[in-house]
């Protein structure tokens, strides 16, 4: 019984290991040394407190982005706009971070986080309302909003909110009262992310609110029958999703970059989709998934320097891991799982009798 419950949880772990093995073969084929590559990743990501802190910093916005995607998926919505929402949260939090100088820390930092949350939630709210009232598909709306928000934040950082007297487009640095530091070598933002992962898990898996979202996500007709507001759950899930993405952006600005600078946050929202899938839409599993991806991302310069590998190898490994998680049948075939647990058997025992 316990083993049966464990097996689905093991799948992503095995997938990552298999992906790394295949990745090693790719490295070999590219004429580099897999051992050197592995060493580079290890040194860059985990050797010493500084490296670990850097890894956790990389992982922090990824946790939020992953949670944002999960909240949507639970309600049957695909928030592909986490990227745009994260950017808007990042730049507005940074703006509040340098503009509202002079406030006491106890007010300033929470205020900046709140600004990021609200500004991340707004575009998602728009997508949710359009979906709930007009039936416009959230994927289309959020993709378009991504483009708008990427360009809007670029323009703000290179125009009205640009740091004076600098050649690069970026906002001024956040003042000390809004900065998130490290506690005992662990970034405060990461602690917040971990707390949020448990919070989202509790809300989704243990509360009536989470049950409403999940029912709408699993069978909206049955939700309608049970008197659950499908429109309400759609708007709520999108808004919450956007708020998490916005918070992720704010934490990135306040805790890692120290300002908003376009390019620093590129792809975080999309990594959120990867993480959500790797975590099999389970909020708590987002933490290890994000740390894994954070570690790989943190090691890209070392990979280039030590193993003379293009950093894209990281994406190859991630894509392989994702493929294996998304298509577990490949993994089962690769591993030749014992007959008792063959995929057909697992599947068909659900339908015996008539």
């Amino acid at each position, binding site marked *: 019984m316990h083993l049966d419950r464990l097996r689905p949880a093991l799948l992503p772990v095995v997938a990552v290991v298999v992906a790394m093995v295949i990745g090693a073969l790719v490295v070999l084929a590219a004429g580099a040394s897999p051992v050197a590559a592995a060493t580079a990743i290890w040194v860059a990501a985990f050797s010493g407190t500084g490296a670990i802190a850097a890894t956790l910093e990389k992982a922090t916005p990824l946790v939020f982005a992953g949670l944002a995607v999960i909240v949507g998926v639970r309600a049957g919505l695909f928030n592909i706009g986490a990227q745009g929402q994260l950017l808007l949260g990042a730049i507005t939090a940074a703006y509040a971070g340098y503009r509202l100088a002079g406030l006491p820390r106890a007010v300033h930092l929470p205020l900046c986080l709140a600004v990021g949350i609200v500004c991340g939630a707004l575009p998602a709210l728009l997508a949710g309302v359009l979906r709930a009232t007009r039936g416009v598909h959230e994927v289309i709306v959020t993709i378009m909003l991504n483009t708008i928000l990427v360009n809007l934040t670029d323009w703000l950082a290179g125009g009205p909110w640009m740091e004076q007297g600098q050649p690069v487009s970026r906002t001024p640095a956040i003042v000390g009262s809004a900065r998130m530091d490290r506690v005992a070598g662990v970034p405060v933002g990461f602690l917040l992310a971990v707390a949020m992962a448990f919070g989202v898990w509790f809300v989704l898996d243990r509360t009536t609110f989470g*049950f409403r979202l999940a029912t709408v996500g699993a*069978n909206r*007709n049955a939700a*309608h029958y*049970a*008197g659950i507001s499908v429109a309400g759950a759609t708007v709520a899930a999108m808004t919450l999703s956007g708020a998490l993405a916005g918070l992720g952006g704010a934490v990135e600005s306040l805790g890692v970059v120290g300002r908003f600078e376009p390019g620093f946050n590129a792809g975080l929202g999309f990594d959120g989709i990867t993480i959500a899938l790797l975590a099999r839409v389970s909020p708590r599993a987002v933490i290890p998934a994000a740390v894994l991806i954070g570690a790989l991302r943190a090691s890209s310069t070392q990979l280039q320097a030590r193993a003379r590998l293009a950093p894209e190898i990281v994406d190859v490994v991630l894509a392989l891991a994702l493929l294996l998680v998304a298509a577990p049948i490949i993994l089962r075939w690769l591993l030749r799982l014992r007959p008792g647990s063959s995929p057909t058997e697992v599947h*068909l025992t659900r339908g015996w*009798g*008539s």
Partner: protein
Amino acid sequence: MSESRPGEAGAVPQARGVLLEVRGLTKRFGSVVANEDVSLQLRRGEVLALLGENGAGKTTLVKMLFGLHRPDGGEIRLAGEAVRLRSPRDAIARGIGMVHQHFQLVPVMTVAENVVLGAEPTRRRFVDRRRAAAEVRELSERFGLAVDPDAVVEDLPIGAQQRVEIIKALYRGAEILILDEPSAVLTPEETDELLGVVAELAARGVGIVLITHKLREVMEAADRVVVLRDGRVVGEVAPADTDEAGLAALMVGRSVVLRIDKQPASPGEPVLGIQGLEVDDDRGRRAVTGLDLEVRAGEIVGVAGVQGNGQRELAEAICGMRPRIGGCVLLQDRDITGLGARAIHDLGVAHIPEDRDKHGLVGSYSVADDLVLNRFDEPGFARWGRRDRAAVQRWAEQLIAEFDVRTPDVHAPADSLSGGNKQKLIVARELSRASVLVVAAQPTRGVDVGSIEFIHRQLVAARDRGAAVLVISAELEELLAVSDRIAVMRDGRIAATFAGASATPEAIGLVMGGATGH
């Protein structure tokens, strides 16, 4: 595959040879024995009915015959030769065709395209659509399966889609046709048509395995009946040698009361009052047109009618799932016309929805969660917005015992239950609560005889506790069995009302038929 052309389906009736023989077939799922030592024979041109309750092992058996399950013991012999069927492809290649309960059709493709899919006739490496259509037309004419090869499948009624599935099997050269509860999705009219088709196919030499739990169909269509119970063959009879009560007793293992005995109704105050109700269907057409109806406390009112005369919309409008365009609905003199599903539920209205998989439950949820689907946030099951999962589990365990829902445990996903047990789950949820009004739409659709009796008793029990009960059903038998009054619905309103005692199928049928009388 490509060389197997239509019509090798033994178009000429040959000697009544044995097409299929099963010897000592056994199948286990973990500790559950789904089939044990099952043996049977199917001859050419014969209709063999496989009868059994939900969960008796009928579907497991035919899944083995179609290569979807591998037997743990015993053997399958085709035309005297022992075979191992590893996949449906194996089974099809050996002349076995199967029509599943849930059709395997591509909705946006035409009938002809669906039929030839995977075995397309080609001309210069392209699909020869004209030849496909011609072949499908030829097949449909030869076997009396009326269907237009050029029609798009999603536009066809369910009965016609089923005929497409049958043609698909015949096109692949099926000599043995397995029909898995074919009538579960059909209206009574469509069922009659289907039984005609089955007889025609048998006359052309096809051997047919008909899975069903509807006794009437067995009596009408089958040459022989094999009865399964708890995975074992418990009897083999010819319909001529028995009657419906005999079959039911064999199936359930005890004698079944097809007509439940109940005390005469003692109707009290009016509970549900409907005046001039107007409701639209999904396409925005008026489906309920100025309907008046009253149901009193302590009585069961049955609503009969040819399907599509507004019954579904009526039930959904009463329960708040569908906007009411005009008129009013009163519940104990309170106007509930504008209320939503949850508010009406909270006023004490239980609703067994017509489509259990679409509306009645969430398939991926556990049995426990589905048992509180519309009351998950009530005080006993949640506090301060936090769900009390232990309380839900205790409640669920009590209900599955009380309502005999057969499931390994309350954590099993609802989708793993058989159709009848899903229905019992919904009945348990809806009737386990004190209600003033029970709206039951097709409460026993696709449910076996034993469970039908159980559900009927529950409805009568709800009545005897003082609830007003409205039963909407396509089965006249069912309405006659449980109703104290029967209202016949036609063109969106009540065309006539009969007292239960005076109602006869003929009289009701006449009123029902008035709607379609052409």
